[in-house]
């Protein structure tokens, strides 16, 4: 066991990554990538969780895999745009299939969902293994990502000025798009998430907003799959808002919580991974899990300790 937990070298873990300018630039890109992935996922995830679509997020993130593979095979590159088209196509097809199976066959929602995404995922894995050994896209990388490779990706130049590496720029753009979308369509998103009858009577198309949200989700997954992998995207979709919901019940507060939480996840995950020499993306989720545990224990809303000591028991509670 001592071999598993190496002694914590304080300066090597916390100070060395930032000591020289070169190290600083390198590691800042990794942490920045982590922050932006968890921020964009956390923001969009707040709405996904509120709509009880957490597993739909799971399904879509698995379902886009064949789209990514086909885009990669046809263009022979992992440029953002074709990947994005492939992923959106596959993601939408996946959610159509789920809805069709649910409506036209006796299958229940959970079976329709599980059946569709496992099939899509299997097809994706099969396609990827047939592409041969490619350093850019291999199944393991897609599944748990390698955020540490972010600084290695090619840089994008504006004229002759280097403005950053490609994954960092694309996730930055996506984060901006998400923040803008949420500010502009905040009311619509809220109404359709919490009161479908009201939104229908206001003339809002629930379907359009649902598919819009799925589209934004697909964009987010495409921009982050390289660094955290499709499965850890699900974690970042669910953890921030459920953690925040132990302290806040209002949506704006939960959304704002995503900012400090994503910064904490990224730094925490980075240091943990540096200490144990393991997957950075995985460590970020482990940190998120620890945060969730602490919130569950100490949270003012339904936290375990609060419930034990402070909750006034009412008749309603007993009847439940």
């Amino acid at each position, binding site marked *: 066991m001592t*071999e598993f937990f190496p002694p914590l070298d304080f300066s090597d873990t916390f100070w060395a990554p930032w000591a020289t300018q070169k190290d600083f630039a390198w590691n800042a890109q990794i942490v920045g990538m982590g922050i932006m992935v968890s921020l964009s996922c956390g923001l969009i995830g707040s709405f996904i969780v509120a709509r009880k679509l957490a*597993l739909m997020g799971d399904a879509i993130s698995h379902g886009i895999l064949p789209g990514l593979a086909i885009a990669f095979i046809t263009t022979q590159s992992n440029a953002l745009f074709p990947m994005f088209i492939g992923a959106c196509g596959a993601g939408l097809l996946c959610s159509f299939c789920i809805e069709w199976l649910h409506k036209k066959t006796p299958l229940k929602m959970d079976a329709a969902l599980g*059946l569709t995404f496992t099939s899509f*995922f*299997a097809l994706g*894995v099969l396609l990827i293994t047939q592409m041969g050994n490619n350093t850019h896209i291999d199944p393991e990388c897609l*599944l748990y990502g390698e955020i540490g490779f972010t600084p290695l990706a090619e840089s994008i130049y504006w004229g002759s000025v280097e403005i950053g590496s490609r994954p960092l720029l694309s996730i930055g753009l996506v984060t901006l798009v998400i923040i803008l979308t949420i500010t502009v369509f905040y009311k619509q998103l809220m109404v359709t998430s919490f009161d479908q009858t009201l939104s229908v009577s206001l003339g809002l198309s629930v379907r359009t907003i649902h598919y819009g949200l799925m589209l934004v989700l697909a964009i987010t997954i495409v921009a982050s799959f390289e660094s955290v992998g499709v499965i850890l995207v699900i974690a970042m979709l669910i953890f921030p808002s459920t953690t925040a919901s132990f302290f806040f019940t209002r949506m704006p507060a939960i959304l704002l919580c995503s900012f400090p939480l994503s910064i904490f996840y990224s730094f925490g995950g980075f240091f943990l991974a540096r200490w144990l020499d393991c997957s950075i993306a995985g460590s970020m989720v482990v940190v998120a899990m620890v945060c969730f545990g602490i919130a569950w224990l100490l949270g003012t809303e339904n936290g375990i300790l609060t419930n034990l000591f402070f909750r006034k028991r009412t008749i309603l509670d007993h009847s439940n």
Partner: protein
Amino acid sequence: MEAAQVNDEVNLISKTYRFFSFADYSVQVVVLGVIFMGMGCGLMGGFVVTRKLSLFGDTLSHAVLPGVAVGFLWSQSKNSISIIVGAMIAGFLGVFLISLLKKTTKVSLDSALGLVLSGFYALGICLLTRIQKMEFGNQSGIDRYLFGQITGLSNQDVWAMGISCILIVLITTIFYKELLVTGFDQGFARSIGLPVDLIQYFLWMLLAFSVITSLQVVGVLLVSALLIIPAATASIITQKMRSLLLWSALLGMVAGVIGSYLSFLGSQLPTGPLIALTSTLLFILVLFLHPENGLLFKGLRLRGKERKIALENTLKAVYQELEWNKFSRDTVRLGNLAKRRRISMPEMYQEAIHLVNKDFAFLLPVKDKTLPSENTLSLSPTGWSEACRIVRNHRLWELYLTNEVQYAADHVHEDAEKIEHVLGDETVRKIERILSNPRTDPHGKLIPSQQDIEQGYIDKMIAKNLP
């Protein structure tokens, strides 16, 4: 080029022969393994899918990953026993956390599943990447737990699969009744004194067994395909639990054998995805082609019914048109019929042809082809009695609703519009008896009597007095 092709073909045949003759020891191991796995997963899947908990299996299969890693770390080798024990513990911890989250917090079930799934999986990834950096980590591709690799299947693994499969079969047969009752009616199960929660945990334990033993073949990520897809396919074939379980197990085995055969054909073909895709293909085949519940045959039957209803509606329109002329003529113009049926002229012409083909009517074409709406139609004796029957059903039902069920007269039409096509002779006679052979419906229109149908026309005296 041609020679290469021939060579390929020979290769394919010889490989097929090698696979299905089961002469090879490695093939025997693989086939035995996938049969055990398909059976165990199929049976468990049947229980899970009917409980609407398909995604529980998915969560469980991800949640065992840290257990696999810790088990590996404990024994520092690819020892099946410690890995299985570790995976069991992790799986249980995951299930326990989900139920705890559901009991103590407001987190919804799907979020709880997602939290445990992704959190445990990430922990597993961390542990695995850590292990790979350690000295003993490289000795075996522990990666295969992610995607599965059937060629590495050892004797010991197949034993473990066989034992877990036999356990599952035995336990589900012995406790079939208990599992059935708790699955469909928890309140009833509690009321007859069954320990519902205990049985639920028991089921998760069995599920964990089948998930863990299948990990090496299909990998963490596709075990849920094996759990869900055969059971979903079976649920389309049958609604009876016992045959659902049998079908599910059978489909699981078939998919396993075909999938592993396909992956045997190439050198780079992964087994897990192929088995999953084979079961998806079986699902699609059943979904469309199953003789009773397949969408294709269902659609055909539905179209047959729709055509029958359309035909009957046209006959009714002919009757109404005749009635509108107070039965003074025995022909009707197609143009008027089309207006009455609210369909286009070409569609109306098609309908008329159908009527003629069924010997319900005669078409009297006009000489001027530019005026298709001037074609006239007259009913044959069978057509007349059929038309009368539909109109009679409709109007009797309307009268029944107003007189006996106290509907308002302006609310009965819609209902009668549907029921007129399905009322049987016996019901009609019963209604007639209840209403004592009425002649007018709530809107004052004539209800054709049995006599009218038999004699083939409406009496002149009655027709004259029609409103």
